């Protein structure tokens, strides 16, 4: 880490990063107060892609909000789907058949791998390496093909329904998923040789942007950000939902809290997700994929309900307040990156500008999910 001492002359200038800047992964804007190459203060400015999801939730029926969930975090859309359908199922007391839960887990774990692969490519791109992006997208396309064959779309899935899923999978999908798991396992050592062990990457990431466990707690950071700081917190283990209790997987935790730790957490998570998919494919039960007794018009009982799921970026929680009608009274979406990014201002104080960009990349930002 740099030993930053603000110059006596106290000469600072304001540097505007974004909202159109390739390193901010979208339309984030950061107002940086700089002293030379060092950051004195960073203030993220949000809202450049505020799409009124919470307002929209209040003026359409429960089912009509479904397509919105896939457009918040488009990289891990299925987990957001899952969070929303799960909270409505909880509110309306809908039972989900077992096979549907398995399909939900299989598809959303594959989606998590694709999200991590995209992050991997984009993160290395931020640091200046172009070719890993091409390899990562090559693998990612295989997942998208698989998911498209089930859900019909490549990115903004709207696959889960209250009480089950929209389509069943076929034998081709199972074979394809198994082939993909084998392929990615074979490719992972290549990624590590190409990128992880690369001296430039190590120098760029090690000891850069340390985030302490206490800081995570004060800002409510979840997901790989808190797991990179030594906090063993994963919603899938912490408040198990769906069929995750039956799955055998580990939660990778790294103590160091620097950007490298967060990088390693995500790389290890790819393997864990593959393990979950493999087990779920082995155990996949027969049966219907849609509950039989789902009312045509959902009207949950009065009261408020919460459900959290683990997305690729952390804990996504939905709080719905129902007044007993067919539209939500209030829909609060607790998005993980919003909290993860809120610690950015404090974390990059006194850092060099290029290091701050490495830190930003390691937080894995999806801006529409922050702004909602």
């Amino acid at each position, binding site marked *: 880490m740099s030993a930053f001492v603000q110059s006596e002359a106290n000469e600072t200038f304001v540097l505007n990063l974004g909202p159109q800047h390739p390193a901010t992964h979208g339309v984030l804007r950061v107002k940086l107060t700089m002293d030379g190459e060092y950051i004195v203060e960073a203030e993220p400015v949000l809202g450049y892609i505020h799409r009124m999801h919470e307002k929209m939730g209040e003026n*359409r029926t429960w*089912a*009509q*909000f*479904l*397509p*919105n969930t896939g*457009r918040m975090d488009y990289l891990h859309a299925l987990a957001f789907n899952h969070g929303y359908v799960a909270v409505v199922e909880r509110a309306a007391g809908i039972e989900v058949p077992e096979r549907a839960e398995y399909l939900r887990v299989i598809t959303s774990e594959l989606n998590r791998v694709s999200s991590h692969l995209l992050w991997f490519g984009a993160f290395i791109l931020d640091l200046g390496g172009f*070719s890993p992006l091409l*390899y990562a997208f*090559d693998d990612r396309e295989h997942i998208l*093909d698989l998911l*498209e*064959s*089930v*859900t*019909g*779309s490549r990115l*903004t899935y*709207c696959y889960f*329904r209250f009480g089950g899923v*929209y*389509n069943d999978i076929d034998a081709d999908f199972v074979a394809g998923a198994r082939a993909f798991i084998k392929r990615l396992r074979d490719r992972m050592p*290549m990624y590590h*040789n*190409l*990128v992880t*062990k*690369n*001296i*430039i990457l190590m120098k760029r990431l090690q000891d850069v942007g340390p985030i302490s466990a206490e800081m995570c707690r004060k800002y409510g950071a979840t997901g790989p950000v808190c797991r990179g700081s030594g906090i063993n917190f994963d919603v899938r283990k912490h408040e198990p939902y769906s069929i995750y209790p039956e799955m055998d997987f580990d939660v990778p935790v790294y103590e160091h809290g620097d950007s490298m730790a967060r990088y390693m957490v995500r790389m290890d998570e790819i393997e864990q997700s593959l393990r979950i998919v493999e087990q779920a494919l082995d155990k996949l039960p027969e049966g219907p994929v849609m509950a039989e007794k789902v009312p045509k018009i959902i009207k949950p009982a009065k009261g408020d309900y919460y459900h959290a799921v683990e997305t690729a970026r952390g804990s996504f929680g939905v709080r719905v307040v129902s007044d007993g009608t067919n539209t939500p009274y209030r829909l609060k979406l607790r998005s993980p990156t919003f909290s993860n990014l809120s610690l950015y201002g404090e974390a990059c104080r006194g850092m060099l500008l290029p290091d701050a960009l490495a830190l930003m990349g390691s937080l894995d930002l999806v801006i529409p999910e922050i702004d909602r």
Partner: protein
Amino acid sequence: MIDYLREIISGTWSLFVGLGITIRYFFKPVVTVQYPHQTLPMTPRFRGHIELVKDEETGATKCIVCGMCQKACPSNCITVNGEKQEGVKGKVLTEYTLDFTKCSLCGLCVESCPPKAIAFSKDYNLAGVKKEAYIFDLKKRLEAKN
């Protein structure tokens, strides 16, 4: 000092390892699809814009003008109109307009349709210079197909 030298050597080696990997991919088959000459097979479940389905027996539409799709659509992109006609049971479809520029391809309309009169098309490569071209008159499209 020795650590410093070791780091330089191992670091340089790591760069060569990386270059070796990229060189090896140079000799592997190309993964790129040469798009206009070569196309990817579309999955049967691919969701393009919706399309009216032809009834195999009569050749006409299956739509019964119940308006369920219009009600189910979250973004109000479907307009269905029908009228009573002599000697025909139920309503007859007179207008089925889809404003594809507002559609989010969620599939709620297709699911809600009782007679399964709409389905996803496979139009995956639409692009054009007019935005009005994407407000489809599905009834006309169905008739043009016959």
